[in-house]
């Protein structure tokens, strides 16, 4: 109740209006739809009591920093510099709304324009928006955007191709988002080595878009993706989903012909935070600009000719265009994108490369160590990996995960949960990051070795 400054002053305010009771304010609600009782909820609490309960409940969770963890599958157990939280929670940022009044919102507008620049530079495309909900909705809206742009010239009407090896959750999001137009999703096959089948990719000629991930859901880096544009041609959008950190070492997709780049921005700016709030990045070539979803900030001047920033190209958006809008997105993830911008700015180009090297190094070191265990093999033995790699175990991965868990280690993600149908119940996805330590690797190898020896008896 300490949130209500007019508590105890109700009568004073009512009498100024010539009213006697609060009930008069609700007189328009007909009797037959009024609640008959008060809300059957718990009693109000004080700040101290809520803090106590929050510490108890959230303290009952096992946080990733409390044990060796190799659980990733698209989210990064990262380290976020202290400056990020300290600056982003300044009330002027935290408690502002979408900057509809640019005259008093220059701070957030400029910060988002800088964010757009950093994303544009990162992925090698000229335009970026100020965020999508996550990597999955970004991928889905990239596909609908491509259908709008390429639909007319497409010989495969409404058809989009999606890589076989993207996380199934993402595929479900894509399927939901593609309900609208007359679109059809076809699967782009991978070869036995985990790479995109470039011969199969030729089938996508004449379609609206091809969506692939670099690295894919198993952490596999695929040089063949850089040939996709020359295979599918100008009128089919090449959409690449990226691990943003990998781009410190791996070529920016815009530089090998990608038309739209999306990805999970989370490694820059915020902890895994149980999968949200995080933010999707969305960048594209000029051809797709006017059909892209989301908010965009432009630089301009005020009436005195002074440098200024404002939201622009709003005629694409729902509050103007209503059902003809390019997307329904309104609230996005601006504050998290702001945190991302702060993190990227602090890293700088050199810091980005070093971060990518740390992740690549821990991935390779973990891979070598795990492969030293008899009975553990790589799913894709010849593939290059970034952040994650998949191994085949002697029996179900679920058992390995439980065993390691009991030993205080999160060994990775049981791929049988996602791909039992593909016969992957024995496959474990091991995720590494900049915080993976030598002792974490030793703990993992020790637990897995012991488990293998026990189950192999």
């Amino acid at each position, binding site marked *: 109740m300490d949130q209500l400054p007019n508590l105890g*002053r109700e009568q004073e305010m009512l009498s100024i209006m010539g009213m006697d009771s*609060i009930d008069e304010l609700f007189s*328009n609600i007909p009797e037959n739809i009024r609640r008959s009782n008060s809300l059957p909820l718990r009693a109000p609490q004080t700040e101290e009591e809520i803090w106590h309960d929050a510490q108890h409940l959230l303290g009952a969770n096992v946080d990733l920093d409390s044990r060796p963890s190799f659980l990733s599958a698209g989210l990064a157990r990262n380290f976020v510099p202290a400056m990020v939280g300290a600056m982003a929670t300044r009330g002027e940022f935290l408690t502002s709304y979408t900057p509809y009044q*640019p005259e008093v919102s220059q701070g957030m507008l400029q910060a988002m324009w800088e964010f757009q620049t950093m994303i544009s530079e990162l992925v090698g495309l000229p335009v970026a928006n100020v965020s999508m909900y996550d990597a999955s909705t970004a991928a889905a809206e990239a596909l609908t955007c491509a259908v709008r742009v390429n639909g007319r010239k497409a010989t495969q009407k409404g058809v989009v191709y999606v890589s076989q090896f993207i996380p199934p959750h993402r595929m479900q999001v894509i399927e*939901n988002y593609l309900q609208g137009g007359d679109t059809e999703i076809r699967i782009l096959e991978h070869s036995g080595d985990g790479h995109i089948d470039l011969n199969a990719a030729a089938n996508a000629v004449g379609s609206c878009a091809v969506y692939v991930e670099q690295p894919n859901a198993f952490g596999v880096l695929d040089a063949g993706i850089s040939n996709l544009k020359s295979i599918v041609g100008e009128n089919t959008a090449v959409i690449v989903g990226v691990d943003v950190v990998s781009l410190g070492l791996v070529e920016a997709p815009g530089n090998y012909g990608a038309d739209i780049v999306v990805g999970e921005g989370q490694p820059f700016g915020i902890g895994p935070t149980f*999968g949200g709030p995080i933010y999707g990045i969305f960048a594209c070539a000029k051809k797709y600009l006017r059909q892209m979803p989301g908010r965009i900030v432009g630089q301009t*001047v005020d009436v005195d000719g002074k440098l200024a920033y404002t939201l622009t190209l709003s005629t694409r958006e729902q509050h103007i265009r209503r059902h003809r809008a390019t997307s329904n997105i309104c609230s996005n993830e601006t504050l998290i994108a702001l945190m991302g911008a702060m993190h990227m700015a602090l890293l700088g180009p050199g810091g980005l490369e070093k971060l990518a090297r740390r992740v690549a*190094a821990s991935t390779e070191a973990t891979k070598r160590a795990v492969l030293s265990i008899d009975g553990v093999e790589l799913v894709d033995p010849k593939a290059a990996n970034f952040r994650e790699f998949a191994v085949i175990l002697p029996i179900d991965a679920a058992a390995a995960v439980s065993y390691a868990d009991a030993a205080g280690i999160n060994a990775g993600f049981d791929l049988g949960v996602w791909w039992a149908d593909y016969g992957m119940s024995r496959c474990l996805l091991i995720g590494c990051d900049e915080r993976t330590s030598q002792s974490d690797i030793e703990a993992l190898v020790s637990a897995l070795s012991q488990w293998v020896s026990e189950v192999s008896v």
Partner: protein
Amino acid sequence: MGFRGERVSDIFSFNGAIGAGWAQPEPMLSESEVNATIPDGIRRSKLPAWPNASEPELVRHYTWLSTRNFGIDTGFYPLGSCTMKHNPRLNERIANLPGIDRLHPLQPVHQIQGLLSIFYEMQEMLEICSGMDQVTLQPVAGAHGEFTAMRCIQEYHRDNGESHRDKVIVPDSAHGTNPASAAMCGYQIVEIPSGEDGRIDLEALKAAVGEDTAAMMITNPSTLGVFEPEILAASEIVHGAGGQMYYDGANFNAILGKTDPGLMGFDAVHYNLHKTFSQPHGGGGPGSGPIGVKNHLAAYLPTPLAARREISESDPKGVGDGFWYTWEIPEKTIGKVQQWHGNAGAVVRSWAFYRRFGRELEKMSEHAVLAANYLRHIIMNPDKETQEGVHAMPVNGVPADVVMHEFTLSLSPLVEAVGVTGKDVAKRLLDYGVMSPTLYFPMIVPECLMIEPTETESKEVLDKFAADFLTILGEDPDLVKTAPHTTDVRRVDEVSAARNLILRHPKGTE
């Protein structure tokens, strides 16, 4: 606001920390070993032209930017439809605990019992407040919730052999997201006009429904801030035609504990936790847009839902409330609408907000409605001297005696009297240190300002706003038409921004 004036801070011109960047531990393997892990042909040729900045430079840059940004913490933010209420700082502190910030959505349930119990409590609380049977917390924004619910409704109709239902009805006063969300599912939009008083035109609704009606999307109170007393009749018309009723929860702050969408006959509803339950808006997001549905739609909800059963002796340690928390997959689920479990951090903040009010959430709505009516009253009923000082009084957007949590004013008389528009007044308010109300929405009210004070503004703030507002209506028209005058930049050239697109800094492209 300290650093006014011509000062510019260009993050791309800093020269600190060149090369090294932010100091980090060394990689585990040598440079050549790492290089060997990247396939030939896709090694990055040129690093991005990001800033070269040290922490001191950046802290000053972002602090400077923050001083050029207006939030609720800065001043009154009566942005209609957006429910800009105070954000208690405890909620931020809680959301930074490692038990949420450092949690992965794929951790096994025994590692996340505490968070699951919070999810369950929030699902249940939202069900109780809305009269719905099952809530999912997965959608991350209001529009995302609308889309999710429309997808569930779409599958429901398909299962009933009624996939020919391809039209969604929205009032002309609806939020733009309603028709946009329905259109994303492939629905055609039928817009029905409101009555002159802003109310639903039941005759128009009767004429619009039919065998092709999938659903109607509507908010109550309406975007004019007025409660629609005939909502039950509207529900009956839509249900009679076989359609579903969707409640846009943007205005939920007005009715908690008084009535609920279930009582009004709705089948599905979204909540904006960033409005009603105080998740900070953060300059445009994150939000959180859970949806609630009646039983017949529950099987279609996105997967998974938080569930619980009584704890048994074979279970590991729970949170001490006698329950074991798990995930449950709805039988005919539409799958995922977000990769994980929605904006869990926003859910935790909103949980902390809810806990402050508990069963007295009704008081929150009472105070929101009290503040809106009070502000409307004192603006529209000034003393004689003040009234004589204005060029023209505004008129109420609707003639209702009482409004709910927000109200609309039309400034048409002012335009006619002295040529000062709603936008001019909105910009002039910025000079008085308050945020502009929502402008020119809903479109059915000419020269509309939509004002929502929320329950967290004191009487003194409301009094001051009314006085300043009425002062502006009497000011020199030229002064108002050229406003704002005291802000960091003056009126921004939005036309030129759209014509001459400059969407990024030139660094790196020269």
